[in-house]
């Protein structure tokens, strides 16, 4: 019995329930449904945390080394990011989109073939640990759980992805909301959302988190590559796609800050950016050849 897969099963159900609750809250506008949804999102977050912890125990290293583990990290970071957003801005209706996305991610993780899921020891290229951290952990006998540039790289990259995913959800809502505002309907299905202007601003804030984290991910990946392959940049497809994605969001920021592109046009760039993220994450691994392929 693999404990991480047990927690996965629980989480799968939790995300389904959470997504349904948020959708229920959106449609029926009952406060208690919303509160239950938030509680369930917390439960799902805890359960996802347990997946990651259990997996670290099983594989004997930080749980960021195959496609399935990275999906769990993505789900975890997006959930955490969403809950922070909900806490700070007190909007719940957005949860229907974000948690829907989370559930889709869980389904995709579930459908992965076993070889992308199993807990494996690290191959030589993935063994990068910070010596200082090993020294700190050694007295407790935990030095094998020390992390290094590679783990830092994956972790920061996925916080970046989570920011972009949230911005993507918000941009979709923006486009729907904008249409309903333009047609003058106040209530209705879109009535549960805050004003379009606020959604637009939140979408930008999510990118303002995603962008620097993706940059940190790219740089820490370069530091690791400099240890492992002997050069910090080699234009491998994954590296190049991360740069492409980063440039798209840089274009978003410049269009917004300096040319005043807001609302619809900003939302379209954000959607395009997230399509690039999906390709960067999944497409590159399966379609294009290279060093990074989680799929190999």
């Amino acid at each position, binding site marked *: 019995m693999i404990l991480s897969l047990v927690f996965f099963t629980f989480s799968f159900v939790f995300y389904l329930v959470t997504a349904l609750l948020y959708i229920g809250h959106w449609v029926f506008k009952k406060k208690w449904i919303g509160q239950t949804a938030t509680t369930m999102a917390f439960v799902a977050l805890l359960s996802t945390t347990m997946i990651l912890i259990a997996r670290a125990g099983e594989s004997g290293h930080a749980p960021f080394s195959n496609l399935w583990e990275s999906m769990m990290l993505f789900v975890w970071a997006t959930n955490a990011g969403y809950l922070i957003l909900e806490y700070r801005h007190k909007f719940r209706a957005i949860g229907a989109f974000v948690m829907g996305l989370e559930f889709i991610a869980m389904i995709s993780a579930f459908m992965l073939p076993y070889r992308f899921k199993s807990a*494996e020891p690290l191959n030589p290229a993935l063994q990068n640990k910070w010596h200082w951290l090993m020294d700190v952990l050694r007295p407790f006998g935990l030095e094998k759980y020390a992390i290094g540039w590679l783990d830092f790289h994956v972790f920061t990259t996925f916080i970046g992805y989570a920011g972009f995913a949230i911005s993507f959800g918000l941009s979709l809502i923006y486009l729907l909301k904008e249409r309903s505002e333009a047609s003058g309907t106040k209530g209705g299905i879109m009535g549960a959302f805050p004003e379009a202007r606020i959604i637009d601003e939140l979408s930008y*804030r999510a990118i303002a988190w995603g962008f620097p984290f993706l940059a940190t991910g790219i740089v820490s990946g370069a530091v690791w590559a400099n240890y492992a392959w002997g050069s910090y940049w080699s234009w491998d497809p994954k590296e190049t796609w991360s740069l492409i994605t980063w*440039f798209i969001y840089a274009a978003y920021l410049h269009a917004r800050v300096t040319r005043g592109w807001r609302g619809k046009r900003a939302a379209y760039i954000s959607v395009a950016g997230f399509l690039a993220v999906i390709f960067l994450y999944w497409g590159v691994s399966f379609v294009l050849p290279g060093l990074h392929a989680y799929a190999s």
Partner: protein
Amino acid sequence: MQDKAKNGGSKPFYKNSIWYFFNSLKLTLFVLITLAVVSIFGTVVEQNLPVEEYLQKYGEKWTSFILTARLHDMYHSYWFLALLAMLALNIIVCTFERFPPKWKALLNHKSEKFDARLIEKFANHHVFDVAASPEAVKERVVNAFKRKKFDIITSGSGKEFHLYAWKGRIGRLGSDFTHISLLLILLGAIIGSFAGYKDFRAVFVGGEMSVPKADFRLKLDNFWIDYYESGQIKQYNSLLTVIEDGKEVLKKQIWVNEPLYYKGIRFYQSSYGTAWNRVSEAEIAVQTKGRSEHNEPMLVKWETPTPLSGTKYSVKLIGYAADFAYDEGTNQVFSKSAEAVNPAVHLEIYDGDKLISTPWLFLKYPGIFPAIPGADEDLVFTGYRGIMYSGISINKDPGTNVVWAGSIVMGLGFILAFFVYHRRVWIVVRESGKSTEVKLGGMINKNNLVFEKELKEIVESISSEKAGGK
């Protein structure tokens, strides 16, 4: 929109149409999107393959297009580098054009004209009355802003006060830090491509390797592989010794992810294998011609004359080819690959002191050529012990540290650009009948939601009774 070129006075000589071309933010968007789009080609067309593979994959017409457009080595092509150079020029010109006025405005911000009528024009403004004297209300305003970590200055006295509060000015420099960091990173890459090099050496255990453009050598003391209990490979290791002026100055174990760094040069564990042109010893057996079985094989060490027991001959092992091939043009034997596909050893056979034969013997084809012409005995090659080599990549890149420095500056820039917002608030406190009227309004350079909330809290704390208390 864009900064207009302010005319008036003579323009510096460099402010010509080229300058304005590079000052454009439309150009920035264009270059960023173009870089993103063309980079996609580079990930779809696999880079730096031999020409035949492109021919096979894309056919003749497309291959010639790929080669002409240099899509096979796109990221080093002149047009790609030109795009990067455009981005760099764009950044340099934009920074030159925008930074000095911005810097001046940030320094002189307090002397900006105070126009009370403008306050109500801000999207974020509040007008409200407080039942207290102007003096007391002014105190409350100052305290409310200070509590939110604003700086604030006051002018006026008696019945009317003008105040100006600000916070987070330095956030405005975030984009400049970011842009300069990009230039630093590009600079680091340029330094690396001119002053650095990459190289590779395969070294046998016990052997030494030279290092290009350096006054030291490396010796490989040992190479070994660690395994997990499950049998999967855990790590490749090499033990290296640095030799300088004939002395051993440093010993270090390297593995994948743990290079040796010495005098600005890095040495990486990058591959390993068994030698294709050397063995440490070979097993040679004597066989009487016509018989099917041979005697007990003997161990023959590399380049060490060894008498063959039971015969008058002695042999010396002088060559090895893992995948035997013969070049008729040059009469040379070579190994077609590094794999032991067709292993063969080269021997010198002596009768006393006299060299009588130099045959190649094949592991898989014993006896196809007689080892000693005209003799009763033949020799067969029955086995060998290979030599491990370790593949060491050598990399000198003095630009790397510049790239890291640029990355750190970029991090600072991001913190300033995305998490430090510049707020400015103008406040008028004026007697109005029995109470005091407060008008305040202002702006933030981004994240208006935070600002709305902050201003509301400030207004509440000014109007509430307990506010302003000391």
